């Protein structure tokens, strides 16, 4: 790509005009969007097709720019210095005869890639310009000025099948055949019943009395009834104690439980 000859030519060309150019660019450094942008700008000054630019000349131009900036004590962003270092490396690669023992890409490969990057950036800029110049909505062509909104109508569709209908009807018509589940209460003496009974009797219980004597009549013969009545009466007794109307005592385990009215209360 760039042989010795080209380089010498480039060198001489740079020394005059481009030194001034570099200086101008240094002053304008804030106007560039990073080193690639600056490089593209420099490449354009070569006034050739981007595919034919001399990367070596470009590298030299850039390094000059950085030098100038240093001389003018202008703070360059790190990006610019990284690029400078890379271009210095590229320059040395391009100038030295290729070393067959050396690993890595050749100077030409690197230069070609930089040229590609510059060309691609330029291409995207051109594309952006073309895009913005394209016919545009609200500028060159227009949408409907009085759009008619689409009214959203939400319709609820209820579904039911014949089976649903029949099952519903069957459910109603057969409801009478069922009655709610209730316990057969013939042999159950509830706590409410016991409590009611004992409230009536407690006034008379001045002395300790076995609570079994409070069982309703006829409930001690049938063991099932007896069990229920005893449990209910015991629970009712506890309730009365809780209410402060009675006292309970039991002399020992399994001994009869005795109850009496609490003193001082009616």
């Amino acid at each position, binding site marked *: 790509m760039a042989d010795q000859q080209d380089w010498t030519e480039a060198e001489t060309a740079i020394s005059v005009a481009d030194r001034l150019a570099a200086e101008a660019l240094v002053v304008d450094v804030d106007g560039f969007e990073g080193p690639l942008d600056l490089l593209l700008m420099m490449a354009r000054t070569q006034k050739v097709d981007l595919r034919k630019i001399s990367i070596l000349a470009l590298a030299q131009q850039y390094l000059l720019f950085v030098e100038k900036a240093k001389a003018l004590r202008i703070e360059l962003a790190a990006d610019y210095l990284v690029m400078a270092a890379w271009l210095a490396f590229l320059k040395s690669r391009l100038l030295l005869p290729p070393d067959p023992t050396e690993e890595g890409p050749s100077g030409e490969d690197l230069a070609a890639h930089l040229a590609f990057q510059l060309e691609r950036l330029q291409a995207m800029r051109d594309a952006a310009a073309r895009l913005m110049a394209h016919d545009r909505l609200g500028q060159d062509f*227009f949408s409907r*000025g*009085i759009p008619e*909104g689409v*009214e959203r*109508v939400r319709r609820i569709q*209820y*579904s039911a099948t014949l089976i*649903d209908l029949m099952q519903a009807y069957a*459910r109603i018509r057969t409801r009478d055949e069922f009655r709610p589940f209730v316990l057969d209460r013939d042999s159950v003496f509830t706590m409410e019943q016991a409590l009611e009974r004992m409230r009536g009797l407690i006034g008379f219980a001045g002395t300790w009395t076995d609570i079994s004597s409070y069982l309703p009549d006829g409930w001690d013969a049938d063991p099932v009834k007896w069990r229920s009545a005893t449990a209910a009466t015991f629970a009712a007794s506890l309730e009365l104690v809780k209410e402060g109307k009675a006292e309970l005592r039991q002399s020992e385990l399994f001994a009869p439980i005795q109850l009496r009215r609490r003193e001082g209360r009616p």
Partner: protein
Amino acid sequence: MSDETMQDETGEAPPRDSLFEAPPIAEQERMVEAILFASADPVSVRELSERMPHGCDPAEALVYLRKRYEGRGVRVVRVGDAWAIRTAPDLGFLMQRETVEQRKLSRAAIETLAIIAYHQPVTRAEIEEIRGVSVSRGTVDQLLEMEWIRFGRRRMTPGRPVTFVVTQEFLDHFGLESARDLPGLADLRAAGLLESRPLPGGAPRAGDDDADDEIDEGQSELFED
């Protein structure tokens, strides 16, 4: 810019200020079309005139444009003394977007519906008696709105209560020719939808007394099996 614009521009001068002849009427028609389309408000002939190149006759162009849109999906209509493009009235339904939501009919609704179907004509009080719970106004309204039930004749009993009957829509929806085709309890039982125990006093009670004129719609014979 587009090719066309280029042509216009490369012509002698911008058309609107042209001293030359007005554009052909077909071109004027295009212009009116574009202006009416893009404007946020109806546009008067005067305004059209101001916006179009010198020498144009928007009133004439409008005549052509109107004609062109006759019978189309949109029309050129006059709004006061201005003009606008509007959807053809017969296509208004396209401007609605219906979203259909499927919902299962509530248990109360389906039970009420079933009772009406099997016992029609039936009064609200009768429905309540059969269901054993009161029927909310909303449930009946919903069924009326769905057009699955409608009002039947009033009962010739004190208070002259209204009755409900099922509609043709109902029959269509459930694929029935008439309410008589509703399966009877025997069929339900056979289909395993009922317990096999016989129904105590099964015959429906409604419609027995005075609704004789609607007896053919009634269900009195349905459950006698």
